[in-house]
């Protein structure tokens, strides 16, 4: 069998060359998206609602809208670094304030778009006699099973959960053993799959879930208001359709969609 010193890499090189040529031909695919698209950078917890709302807008106005979802903090930093977003929907007041201080958003356009509420959630199939926001009762019932919350050190849902548990005076007992998840979606999943008996979640996540139900709703005083603020970014100010989208999202048609997804609208 004839060996030639260079045979061992000839073939793979040829393949890589072919692959790249093919990709180069394909390269029209990933690049230029329609320049007229409006990009809305929205917090991941609003995916369902924003997707549905924007698809209605797209159908109506025959315009391309591209939602980009990540955590509010990542989005804020990316917009500051020049990301091509025209609207910013933040699940976290702190990040919107930061964006404003950096001049990333047009402060006159900043407003509260959505509100949410905090609930104790559990699997639909479970039965509960009554749950009180009284220390002993709460601990005896919730302390029995596993409690899923967001990680209070960085997840907004976790920060709210900790505030609520502190308000009740049970954070010291329940906090240490609670399961800390990276975000609201993970906390929700744990309860849906029965890994956790209870979870402190957003009302919007629970009412849209086919597997969960609300065990009890936290009163407003238990935590800071959960607000989702929206604003036009500096890049968006230059886009003719961005303001249109912003106004539409604050209108009644969009409000219906948001309500359907469990959010509260002003």
């Amino acid at each position, binding site marked *: *069998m*004839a*060996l*030639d*010193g260079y045979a*061992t890499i000839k073939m793979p090189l040829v393949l890589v060359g072919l692959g790249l040529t093919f990709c180069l031909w394909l390269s029209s695919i990933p690049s230029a998206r329609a320049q007229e698209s409006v990009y809305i950078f929205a917090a991941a917890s609003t995916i369902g609602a924003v997707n549905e709302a924007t698809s209605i807008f797209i159908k109506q106005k025959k315009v391309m809208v591209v939602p980009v979802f990540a955590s509010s903090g990542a989005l804020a930093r990316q917009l500051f670094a020049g990301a091509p977003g025209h609207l910013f929907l933040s699940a976290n007041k702190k990040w919107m304030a930061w964006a404003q201080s950096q001049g990333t958003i047009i402060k006159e356009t900043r407003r509260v778009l959505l509100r949410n509420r905090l609930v104790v959630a559990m699997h639909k199939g479970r039965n509960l006699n009554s749950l009180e926001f009284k220390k002993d009762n709460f601990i005896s019932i919730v302390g029995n099973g596993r409690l899923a919350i967001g990680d209070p050190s960085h997840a907004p849902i976790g920060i709210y959960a900790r505030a609520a548990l502190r308000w009740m005076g049970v954070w010291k007992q329940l906090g240490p053993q609670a399961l800390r998840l990276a975000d609201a979606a993970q906390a929700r999943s744990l309860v849906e799959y029965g890994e956790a008996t209870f979870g402190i979640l957003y009302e919007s996540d629970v009412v849209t879930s086919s597997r969960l139900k609300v065990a009890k709703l936290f009163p407003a005083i238990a935590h800071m208001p959960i607000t989702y603020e929206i604003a036009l970014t500096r890049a968006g100010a230059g886009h003719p359709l961005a303001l249109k989208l912003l106004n539409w999202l604050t209108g009644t048609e969009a409000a219906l969609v948001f309500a359907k997804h469990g959010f509260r609208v002003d």
Partner: protein
Amino acid sequence: MLDAHVTKVLGNFRLEAQLATGSGRVTALLGPSGAGKSTLASCLAGLINPDHGIVSLDGVELFNSDNNTNVTPERRRIGYVFQDARLFPHMSVKSNLEYGLRRTLKGDRRVDFKHVISLLDLSDLLKRGPRTLSGGEKQRVAFGRAVLTSPRLLIMDEPLASLDAVRKSEILPFIERLRDELAIPIIYVSHAIEEILRLADEVVVFADGKTVSAGPAVETLNAATVFHGSDGDPASVIEASIEAKDPGDGLTSLAFGKKRLHVPAIPGQVGDRIRLRIRARDVALALEKPRDISVLNILPGQITEITAGGDGHTDVRLDIGGGLWARITRRSATELSLTLDQEVYALIKSVAIDRGSGAGA
């Protein structure tokens, strides 16, 4: 012609050596393992850089620590055959052979590809991969690969050390062919006296990182400090020529100087020069010429050296018209009252023949 003297320190080991090739075709570098021979060879080829010194080939400086001359190995035109062949596993034998050839400028190519293939019997191996070759086959390919670069000097670093005795005797003729048919000077590094006796014109003796002695093969090998054959026994070398062959009683007589030795029939023709190796313990001494004794080879000589050894033996050097070592017990030496300059008789029981430099050398 190569001329080198280098110094190199490697950890605890200090190499401080001179080496020069003369007009002979093969210069052997002889020394025990660990003496630093391979280190020296690597310095010559440029694979290792000496700390200090000069290496020059045919008048051109390849290395000089005083003026920062250091020619890279690939430009030195020094061929190298390694003990472990080092054939490139991802190439066929043919590609291995062509590797250096391709990198030699057309104007420098003096060695013919077909000639080398037939010289080293490589035509059946060309399409094979190195992994399927035996040790001897690998070395033949290694020889071919090295000479095809038409080097100005060929270094063979213990090329037969990893072969068994049968293979060694198969491969040695190929080295002789290379020596005889290609006009490339060879430096042959080895600790095996038999190989060196067979191939070398000149010998440089090496020990502990230093050149101990250098000169024509037979003379140098007979010097006191050297000579232990591969079986650990001291031995002497004599260069002789075939004087007559007697088919009758199957003996051949060899002449050296005015002396004669009789040995069982050996191949070769009258006039061929050969080298003999005589183990010191195969030589007995007598104060008077013995009679009615079976030993054929009895030669008179004068004692030039007496050295008492460790294990109760004594080595005695005689001048019989050439040097000859005899190893006897210390007791015998005392009882015979051997002294320097004494005239005694050497009784040579057996002689090992190493074929010499070939016809007309």
